[in-house]
């Protein structure tokens, strides 16, 4: 498999702001690669550089073997893009928008097929300005597919959408992968990255702070599995002395880090026989979200900011 996108030490500055600060990553052909990061992380900047509509400050970028800034016109024919905050001509109907794009790309219009595919009602005669957020986004996806692209850039395609529209778009993205297209997806929804992506890069403040499959990332950056006991916090000290494992009180329950297979059993039997009051127990493992929040930093509130509308950045 050859790489669809190769990025080496990419830097983009806006005056004093280092929006992208030396990132490296590779997207393999046929995979869904997600950029996961809070608002202002540098996702859009990176994507726009790869699309050839923004020059980089320094670093190497190769998209389908081309330099996106220099070969933008050749690349255009082979990539499909739905930009963040997708907007279109307000007075055009969806079918007309697709016809326009088809004319510009010089391909026969497949309006019916594409509208069908993104589940945008074909008979809908509404103008773009009257479409709902989800319908607009679906049209954006349909337009991105007009030229039958090998590589699709989807910049926050579901931000601000209701769950049903979001699911419809997820289905389209899965379809793209099934057809062997490469997808570069950016999102600040963890769930979305986890559900759709083969590999994820977590980006914050212009740096990639973790990359790999969701499992890799959790394994590498997540805390070990824990046993959580809802019970008397007084047990913490004796328990730690007894089992020799890190123990702490977390969210009102006693949390023990498990290092070996038998640890849970050891802990539970000691607690049961110790006489400390306890009501229930469970095991917990870091989710991608836990990892994400920890990596991006608890101080960075934007990490948990799930904006109801598309972010303005």
């Amino acid at each position, binding site marked *: 498999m050859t790489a669809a996108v190769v990025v080496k030490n990419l830097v983009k500055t806006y005056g004093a702001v280092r929006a992208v600060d030396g990132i490296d990553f590779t997207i393999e052909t046929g995979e869904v690669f997600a950029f996961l990061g809070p608002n202002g992380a540098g996702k859009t900047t990176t994507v*726009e550089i790869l699309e050839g*509509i923004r020059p980089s400050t320094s670093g190497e970028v190769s998209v389908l073997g081309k330099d996106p800034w220099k070969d*933008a016109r050749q690349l*255009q024919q082979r990539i499909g893009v739905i930009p963040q905050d997708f*907007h279109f001509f307000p007075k*055009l109907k969806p079918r007309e*928008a697709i016809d326009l794009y088809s004319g510009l*790309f*010089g391909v026969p219009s497949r309006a019916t097929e594409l509208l069908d595919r993104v589940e945008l009602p074909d008979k809908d005669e509404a103008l773009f300005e009257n479409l709902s957020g989800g319908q607009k986004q679906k049209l954006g996806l349909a337009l991105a597919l007009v030229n039958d692209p090998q590589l699709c850039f989807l910049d926050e395609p579901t931000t601000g959408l209701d769950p049903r529209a979001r699911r419809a778009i997820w289905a389209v993205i899965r379809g793209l992968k099934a057809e062997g297209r490469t997808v570069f997806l950016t999102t600040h929804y963890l769930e979305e990255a986890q559900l759709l992506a083969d590999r994820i890069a977590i980006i914050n403040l212009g740096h990639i702070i973790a990359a790999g499959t969701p499992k890799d990332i959790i394994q590498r950056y997540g805390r070990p599995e824990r046993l959580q006991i809802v019970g008397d916090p007084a047990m913490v000290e004796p328990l730690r002395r007894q089992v020799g494992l890190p123990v702490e009180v977390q969210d009102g329950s006693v949390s023990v880090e498990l290092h070996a297979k038998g640890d849970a059993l050891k802990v539970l039997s000691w607690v049961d026989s110790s006489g400390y009051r306890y009501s229930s127990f469970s095991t917990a493992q870091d989710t991608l979200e836990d990892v994400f929040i920890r990596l991006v930093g608890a101080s960075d509130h934007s990490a948990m900011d799930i904006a109801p509308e598309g972010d303005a950045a």
Partner: protein
Amino acid sequence: MNGRRIRSYFVAFAKGYIRNPIGLFFTLIFPIILILIFGAVFANAGSSVVPLYVENLDHDSPASVAFLSALNDTGAVQVYVISPTAGNLSAYLAKNSETAGLLIPDGFESALVAKTPVDVVVFTNPAAASQAGIVIGAVQGVESAFNLKEAGGSVVVSSSYLNVGSRIFTYIDYLIPGLIGFSILTSPMFSMVNISSTWKRDKLFRQLSLTPLTRAEWLTAAMIWYVLLAIVAALVMIFVGRTVFGAHVSVVPWMFPFLVAGPVLFVSVGLLAGSVSKTPETAAVIGNVILFPMMFLSGTFFPVSGFPQYLQTVAHVLPLYYVIDGLNDGILFGNSVGALRDLVIVLIVAAVLFAAAVSVFSWRED
């Protein structure tokens, strides 16, 4: 440049325009409203004293001077004696757009003395019927008085009447080319100011830059549309002017080069204004700052030749002046040389501004 892309984009652009009632209003309806308002206000305006241009071929003989001062005394006309035009009074009136003239023939006084009949020639413009009536009434009144006093009642002085040729212009005749020029300015310029600022904000240029459409193709499609709009607007205005006010304007080949070059020029102005401003609001302000002096000083509503000299000087640096002057030359005066000169100026300014606009206007981000 790719014709298929231009066509595809043109269709979408035109649909967007037609579906926006505001744009159509300003292109087609607004100029008609202006014609109706200005036409109604000025058609019957002016003092009731009609200027009467007199060519006295009787060498200022006492009798002819007495005749003219009697005319002046009627209060209905104001006599302006012009230097003899070698009998070409009609042409003089046409050139100066005056509606009434009087020719006193050589031998007027001697005919009066000899009591042989003599004709004065009255020129009036049928399009200015009320003024013509005033002039004819005044001349006939003075004639009877003269016949009574000088000839004891026998008819010596009589008048013959000539229509001044088709080249007499009323206010409305000037208004039509002026408003055609005005609509050539406003709709391309304001659309472009609006497009180049709001499309940037809404990232529509970014959207287009993701397709093979080039900036030149985009501009071409837009310009074709504005040229078509300008032509339609001009035809509508000429039609309304003719049917409602009997304006002496007709469709002439010379107006078309201006209907092509004008929109190109003002599309460029709008693109420049929109590109240099940071927000759509600033862009709109800049657009208005450009519009107002042009609207009033370029001869849209009043002929520039009637301006004080310093304002005429100002008018001569405004591109719209040359568009309107050229349209006047073409539509009213049939003056190809003048129209050509104006066209060359418009084309040069359009080329310079177009180049400037293309260089400052970018689709891609930085």
